[in-house]
């Protein structure tokens, strides 16, 4: 059955997936509890390398919770318990020989609200490389800062004011600064938690373009409430509902031919 949505067909992820994509991350029967309350009820999901996976679903369905499991950000929340298996390159991220801090350097995160540190633009980018000792001298650091800002499409706008505070940038620029900051530690996966929800349409378009470019080098998982956005930027889409992962398929498939009627209801705007 074909579902007519208000999404134009041309907005669908236009780039065909090139070649076979390996599996980057795997979730098996992931359950999350906040105290006695269960937030996720056994999620199974595979995240493919160099593709964008969009997580959609109504508020409170657990998509952000799932995202935060992937780099163990939930560890910082008290009385939060995670069960099941999450693997990065076949290695259990909750395993004994994985350090949550090291994991977060490999699985970076961009948040809903731009959160630049109250430091200069340069120091914002250099923060990660410094704590991980990535750059051995100044020139190398300068280069990391420049490449990161270029990849985030911010370099031309800020190259003359690297010493000015990052908090002085506009909202969209701040979010790109945060993306650049995440890129600077060369992660393998970038998690984005509604990265455009605080931005205006022009800044959003900018970030979406950027996500599409970043796909070449990184694996991206993005949580979004905006279904056009999911359709535009992702190749795979997973629909979450009430702590369950209802269905996960190619984005085009989800938006044109959803198998589950809950998915159909959500993307046609009947609820959520």
């Amino acid at each position, binding site marked *: 059955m074909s579902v007519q949505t208000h999404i134009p067909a041309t907005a669908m992820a236009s780039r065909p997936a090139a070649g076979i994509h390996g599996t980057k991350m795997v979730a098996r029967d992931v359950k999350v509890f906040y105290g006695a309350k269960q937030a996720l009820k056994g999620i199974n999901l595979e995240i493919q390398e160099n593709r964008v996976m969009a997580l959609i679903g109504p508020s409170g369905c657990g998509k952000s919770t799932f995202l935060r499991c992937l780099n163990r950000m939930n560890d910082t929340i008290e009385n939060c318990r995670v069960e099941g298996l999450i693997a990065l390159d076949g290695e259990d991220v909750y395993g004994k020989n994985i350090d949550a801090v090291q994991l977060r350097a490999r699985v970076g*995160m961009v948040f809903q609200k731009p959160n630049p*540190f109250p430091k200069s633009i340069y120091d914002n980018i250099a*923060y990660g490389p410094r704590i991980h000792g990535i750059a051995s001298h100044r020139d190398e650091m300068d280069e990391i800062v420049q490449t990161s800002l270029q990849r985030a499409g911010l370099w031309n706008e800020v190259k003359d004011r690297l010493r000015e505070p990052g908090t002085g940038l506009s909202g969209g620029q701040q979010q790109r600064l945060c993306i650049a900051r*995440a890129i600077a530690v060369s992660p393998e996966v970038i998690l984005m938690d509604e990265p455009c929800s605080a931005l205006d349409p022009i800044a959003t378009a900018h970030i979406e373009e950027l996500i599409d470019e970043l796909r070449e080098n990184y694996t991206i998982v993005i949580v979004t409430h905006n279904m056009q956005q999911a359709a535009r930027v992702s190749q795979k889409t997973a629909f979450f509902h009430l702590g369950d992962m209802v269905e996960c398929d190619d984005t085009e498939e989800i938006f044109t031919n959803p198998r589950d009627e809950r998915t159909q209801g959500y993307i046609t705007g009947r609820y959520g």
Partner: protein
Amino acid sequence: MQLTVLLIILALLTVIGYQMGRSRAVASVGGRIVELHSVPSYHGFYVALWAGLPALLLFAFWGASEGWLVMQMVLSGLPDRLVNGDAQSLGLLRADILNLAHGVTTGREPDPEVVAAAERYLRLHALGDWSLLVIGCCIAIGGLLYARGRIDPDLRARNRVERTVNIALVICSLVAILTTIGIVLSLLFEAIRFFAVVNPLEFLFGTHWSPQMAMRADQVGSSGSFGAIPLFAGTLLITGIAMAVAVPVGLMAAIFMSEYASPGLRTWLKPILEVLAGIPTVVYGFFAALTMAPFVRDVGNSLGLSVSSESALAAGFVMGVMIIPFVSSLSDDVINAVPQSLRDGSYGLGATKSETIRLVVLPAALPGIVAAIMLAVSRAIGETMIVTMAAGLTANLTANPLDAVTTVTTQIATLLVGDQEFDSPKTLSAFGLGLVLFVVTLTLNMVALRVVQKYREKYD
């Protein structure tokens, strides 16, 4: 006596007024309260205020001016020979009349005219009290009836009551401000008297402090020397030691409380730390003088150092302990105000907790922490009791924390303890010191407040 009666009557009248206003308002609309502009209780308050306030104002005015008025009437009835003196003898005469009237014997045989005046004073006074009672009651009843007559469904009783409340609030805040101004002025005038005797430059830059003055011309004694540098240096030394204790300990306690302690532990720990702030400084003084100072001396002696038994170190250390809660509590609030999103951002980049605190949280909270420290410094500078008890009174100009030193506040306290003559530079020097202290702490507080303001602009 009459005044107490008046106050009781006023209290009764306001209660009656409230009830009357309320019921009359309800009656005026036949019980359909929605038709009233204001809720019935506002009408009640409206009448009560009219009954109580004008009479209270009269009462306040009377209290302020009665003594002067009656005295003027008494003095005008006295023969010229008594009244025609200079201001000083007139003041004496007034004091004599008051003493006689209140039955205080002065030891010398009073002039019969003065005795008569005292009787007259008492009579007028009693008359005044009675008339106050009568007039007060009349005004209160008049106000009550006036307000009651004005009650009407359309009366904006609520707005009027709120306006009165507003005015009352303004008056209360004015009292605080005026008191401050009064304190500053009294300080300023006495200080000016002091600086008329002692050169301000000598005071501010002299290095010898010895405020003893010869009392009589023929007395052998020091002529007084008012170089306040040793006091400033002592204050600085003790404050420095106190801050060296309070800042690291307080700051780390704050970091522990806000970042590491579980919420349950925090709710216990913070009040307990704040109890430290509630201990009277005299008690800290005991501790400093009886426990810390001998301890410091013994340890110093066993190390082969000569330590006086009243040392700046002991006093400064105890003062530091006293100030810990100021630093920790304020810093804790500031650190908590750093948005969680910044911490998340740092964790998301693979930073550890301590890296996050060191590189993100503390820099973001720094302005607030600086303000907390400045408030603590002004507290340390103004602290008197601990130093008086534990650091001694010797005005040494030294940077050695093992010596006895004295501070500005300690000197002020000793200069003003007991009976003092207020025309001697020795006593007046206390006001000079007080003025300097006031200016310094005021400046520190203002800088701290400015810093806090800047910080707020950043995150709200």
